């Protein structure tokens, strides 16, 4: 169980008023959780990770693994980073070029506090780590003679060889090409489940986050703005920022036409008069402004029972699907439809969606 409570680390920034860092971040992770910190660059996700690692010293807050407190500002506890027993994969992999693959991976075992384990134990553990990441037999290679994907695997093996309680991954896939990234995404997730280590993963790529995580925390300007499982984050965005950062959400702005209790359905009326039912996670009173998020793939093009009407202005055939831009009043609604039929540009269309897939986000 990893506990992070009220974690704050603020960087003074000379260039603009917006200071970087992280503010009052809190989360609890049960053992074995794959947890992702997701957000645009500068949102504080890497700072959070580096605070947990011990690479940065937070201004305040508590970090604990189980009952072991790693950092507590109020009690002036700060375990040095080399005694935290955490595994980490760096964005650059940080494979030491002057060592072989074997020596890279054996390093955490050799420098372990207390007695260095016997040679056979080191060999056994390194071999096991190598086979876990699918690099059996690569031990004797110089570290400079590895491809990007292999370096990535060595970095991972080095991070797990001493069986850490916590694994930190700092954008580990961002230096790989697209095809390899896809493959490693599945591989990483499989590995994490196999060894069952609690993992914090930092990324700005929402599809990575959605595909791999048990839980996701979306960060903006140093704060965690929403935390939940991937489906929740995707289908129930808590605010406009989350809705637009995760996937290409359509944001429709109108007023509340029918009051709703928190978590129940109400109705929203757009300026052009179109009215539809939708979910009010925080509740709503009649007449208040409301922004509704609807996912492009939740919208169907229909000839009858349309909630919205507009005209197709652009069509792109994507193979498995077709993407339409539909002009509704002065906003463009994006719709993803099946590839079996195409609607030509300039055609007037009607659109419809389930009330449960339209969420008020602000």
């Amino acid at each position, binding site marked *: 169980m990893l506990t992070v409570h009220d974690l704050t680390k603020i960087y003074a920034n000379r260039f603009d008023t917006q200071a970087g860092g992280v503010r009052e971040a809190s989360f609890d992770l049960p053992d074995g959780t794959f947890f992702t910190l997701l957000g645009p660059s500068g949102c504080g996700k890497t700072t959070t990770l580096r605070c947990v690692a011990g690479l940065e010293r937070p201004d305040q807050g508590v970090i604990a693994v189980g009952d072991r407190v790693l950092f507590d500002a109020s009690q002036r506890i700060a375990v040095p980073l080399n005694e935290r027993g955490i595994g980490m994969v760096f964005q650059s*992999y940080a494979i030491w070029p*002057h060592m072989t693959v074997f020596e890279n991976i054996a*390093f955490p075992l050799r420098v372990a506090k207390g007695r260095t384990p016997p040679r056979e134990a080191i060999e056994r553990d390194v071999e096991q780590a190598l086979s876990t990441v699918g690099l059996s037999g690569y031990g004797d290679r110089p570290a400079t003679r590895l491809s990007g994907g292999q370096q990535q695997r060595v970095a991972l093996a080095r991070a797990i060889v001493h069986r850490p309680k916590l694994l930190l991954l700092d954008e580990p896939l961002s230096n790989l090409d697209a095809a390899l990234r896809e493959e490693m995404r599945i591989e990483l997730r499989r590995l994490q489940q196999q060894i069952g280590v609690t993992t914090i993963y930092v990324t700005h790529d929402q599809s990575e986050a959605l595909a791999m995580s048990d839980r996701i925390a979306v960060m903006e300007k140093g704060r965690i703005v929403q935390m939940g499982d991937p489906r929740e984050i995707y289908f129930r965005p808590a605010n406009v920022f989350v809705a637009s950062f995760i996937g290409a959400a359509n944001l429709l702005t109108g007023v509340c036409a029918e009051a709703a209790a928190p978590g129940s359905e109400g109705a929203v009326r757009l300026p052009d008069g179109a009215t539809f039912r939708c979910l009010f996670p925080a509740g709503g009173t009649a007449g208040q402004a409301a922004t509704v998020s609807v996912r492009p793939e939740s919208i169907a093009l229909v000839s009858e029972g349309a909630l919205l009407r507009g005209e197709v202005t652009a069509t792109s055939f994507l193979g498995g699907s077709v993407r339409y831009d539909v002009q509704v009043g002065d906003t463009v609604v994006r719709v993803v439809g099946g590839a079996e039929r195409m609607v030509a540009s300039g055609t007037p269309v009607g659109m419809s969606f389930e009330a449960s897939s339209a969420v008020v986000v602000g």
Partner: protein
Amino acid sequence: MSGALTWVRQDMRRVIAALVGIVLAVLMLPPLWILLQDSVTTTNAIGDVTGFTAGHFAKLFTDKDALRSIWNSLVFAGGSTVLSLVAGGVLAWLVERTNAPFKILAYLATIVSLGTPYILHVIAWLFLLGKVGPLNDIYRSVTGGTDSLFNVNSMAGMILIEGFLWSPLVFLLLGSTFRAANADMEEAARMSGATVLQTLRRVSLPLAMPAILALALFVFIRAIGGFEVPALVGMPGRIYVLTTDVYEATIVVPPDLGYAAAFSVVMVLIVAVLLYFYSRLSKNAEKYHSVTGKGFRPRPFDLGKGRWIAGAMIVANFCVVLLLPMITLLWMALLPFLRSFSLAALPMLSLKNFRTVFTAPGYVELATNSLLVAAAAATFIMAITALAGWIAARRGPGGWLLDQLATLSLVFPGICLGVAVMEVYLRVPLPIYGSLWIIAIAYVIRFMPYGMRYVYSGVLQLHHELEEAAGVAGASSLTTLRRIVAPLLSPAIVAGWLFIFLVANKELAIAVLLASPGSQVIAVSIFDQWVNGQGGELAAFGLIWTVLMTAIACLFFVQGRRGGTDVFGN
């Protein structure tokens, strides 16, 4: 007619390359040729070759003194290399990678030492460690005896002084190595459970090793060719190295130029072999370049309580490299004659020496001469290397040849180049010998490689598509050079100019054989005054000069940080 014109325009780069190549060849080749020729021939009084001989080399390799000089050179260079690497390297690591206090002092010492002629440092140290200096003074007052603790005119004294002369350069170059190092590598080791010391020993040091070895070789080469310390510290103690042997053979009457040339050829060969290994090592250092991350500002190592020990080391270095020598020079400048630090001497302090410097004829002219010669050499070098470096870096016509020609003089220790240039221009029927021009020419030959390095690495930093885009847009290669390359390259050119200007005003060895009474430069004049025992005036003048040069060194430092070119392109 228009066809021919088009050809010229299209092949402007060829024309430029040919012209630059001719200039470089005329400058760089004759000194090497004349050294080789002199070393195997006999000449009559007016310098005509009268016959071939192997006698110079035979004398060199059978003469016990000559062999001892070779051995002394190796010990001297080796010892001072180790000392400067340890002192400068530890300082660089502490300043760049830890949270030690007082870092600013390390930069201060470095900037000032960039501007100070080596010979001033040497003189200050000679006094500090000398017979009447404070070190032996304190020793005598403690023991009550009359003997000295330390004889500065010894190999140990030479190594000590030369080592501290080079440590600021080591600090600068290793500092940039440590700064550029991928901090992830060290953080990964710490995350794996390693302590600071384990990380240093098993990751930081091995990673920096290629750069450290290359730098060691570089300092060794410079120390082999070093002249100030062997001349001022070694010669009075009858300890000769190769450079002082060359000097002695040249200034005796009649000069034994064949013997000096043979010595020079030996040194040039040693240096050439070392340079070959140096270039291989530098290439090898690039092997360790790795994928870089997002460049999160690297967090310095927390030394805990040890940071105060580290701070004390930085302060101690500051005292040794800057404070003590400067105080010594000030002491010397304020006294009418040289004597040890003592309260009894206080009433004698006066500004008389400083007044003399400003009023006596000669000093102002000397300063103007030095500045003019250095500026002229720097300007000419940067103009030539801007073209040569661009063509070489872009693998233009004859680029490889231009590169070789421009960096040829790296094999010359300063004193050997002095001998060679003297010989060449004695035979040229132009009134160059005995004028300031000959010093300017020697500077140009000597520092051409530095200009080349600045421009070359500057061009490599420019994406070649910037030039190709200009070509596609319709610009000729001359226009591209003028409108695209030159403006983008100007920070590197300015940095190179300032660097050459600074080192030209520092070095004694090149000019010492070329200066004549009417055409002096600073370092030579200080040398002569020291030999003549005019310590006070030279200290006063040296201090004023140091202030001036430090101001220029500051400019250079700021330019280096701003222009993105590494400080010291070699």
